[in-house]
């Protein structure tokens, strides 16, 4: 498989019956889609399942891809939808778990050092919990920006939102994360 071929060419090959073409597409994007689903869902098992479902859905709907958007945007949109539907199915469980974390992890703000937060497993777990506690619409943009390193325009394309909305959501998300991590730091 030509590694220099664009995603769009690979999709065309897959549509003409090239058995390895879709596999190449998966190899290109699986890591980033996993990062997105992990950032959205916060659990490795769920993220793997969501990644798997994303590519299966993409394969099933390959003929429905019109080429109006980039293949990467199309894949990200499928992944986001997979995560949202998965979260809906497990909403009760997730909310109860997050509720416990809110009670135990976050206290009054005092001081905050992100370098210390990143040092150990406990600290990275705090980051994960803080992101998981964000509303879905805020979490999406943070994960796409920080995990996927998509541009504002790409995020807007994937989520079908105005560019200004993406910026304002990202600003709000960072503000909330800052406050929650401050609480965690002050507690420890």
């Amino acid at each position, binding site marked *: 498989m030509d590694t220099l071929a664009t995603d769009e060419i690979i999709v065309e090959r897959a549509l003409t019956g090239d058995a390895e073409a879709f*596999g190449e597409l*998966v190899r290109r994007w699986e*890591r980033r889609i996993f990062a997105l689903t992990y950032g959205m869902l916060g659990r490795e098992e769920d993220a793997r399942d969501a990644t798997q479902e994303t590519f299966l859905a993409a394969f099933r709907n390959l003929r429905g891809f019109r080429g109006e958007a980039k293949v990467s945007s199309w894949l990200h949109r499928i992944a986001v939808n997979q995560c949202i539907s998965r979260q809906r199915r497990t909403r009760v469980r997730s909310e109860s778990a997050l509720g416990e974390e809110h009670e135990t992890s976050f206290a009054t703000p005092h001081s*905050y050092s*992100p370098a210390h937060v990143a040092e150990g497993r406990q600290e990275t777990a705090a980051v994960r919990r803080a992101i998981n506690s964000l509303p879905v619409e805020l979490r999406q943009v943070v994960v796409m920006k920080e995990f996927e390193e998509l541009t*504002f325009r790409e995020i807007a394309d994937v989520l079908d939102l105005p560019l200004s909305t993406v910026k304002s959501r*990202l600003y709000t998300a960072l503000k909330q994360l800052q406050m929650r991590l401050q609480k965690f730091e002050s507690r420890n």
Partner: protein
Amino acid sequence: MNEMQNSPTCERAPDLIAFVYGEADEREAHDFQLHLQQCGSCRAEVASFGMVRESITAWRDEVLAGFVSTPVMAQPKTKSALAALRQFFDLSPLWLKGATAMAAVTFCVLAGLALFRTNNPQVSSNSGAVYTEQEVNQKVKEALAQQARVQPPAEIPSPNVTIESPRPKPKTSRTSSSTQFARSQRPLSKAEREQLAAELRLLSSDDDTTLNLLGDRINQ
């Protein structure tokens, strides 16, 4: 920190977020930097957002470090033999690497020897044909014994006598003993000298002095 938290949010939040993520163009970035010199709230937020991003990056790196392909994506490329060998050596302990290296060296030496022998057929063909003197004698004896079983016993030649020029049999046993005395390298004992002398005297008297040809019945 409390000051930052309680400070009023600046209206330039969209510009701030574009500046933090490096998506402001050159003119926008320069403009916002000028704004930062005057706005303490935005300066504090730029700093705190930077720290938040560091935390998220650390978590992301930890997450992605453990990423392994899921089965749905498993279309592994066929590894080349070289790649597989390289991976084997990467994962092997040191002792296994050493043992493998020794085995490889031994194999190469043996293969080289085999190749050398193949390229020198004289050595290999002669290797089975070289006999010691003892083996040659043994072979001759065996061949003669086999031949003796086929031929009559009277015609069996002695191993010490050649077939082409057989020695004439001695006339008498005394001649034989005198010849033995004459051929012997050691000095003769007294008894042997007397025996030898007697034999010589006997021969000479018989042959020369005591011949009475006139009195012979045939001549008469």
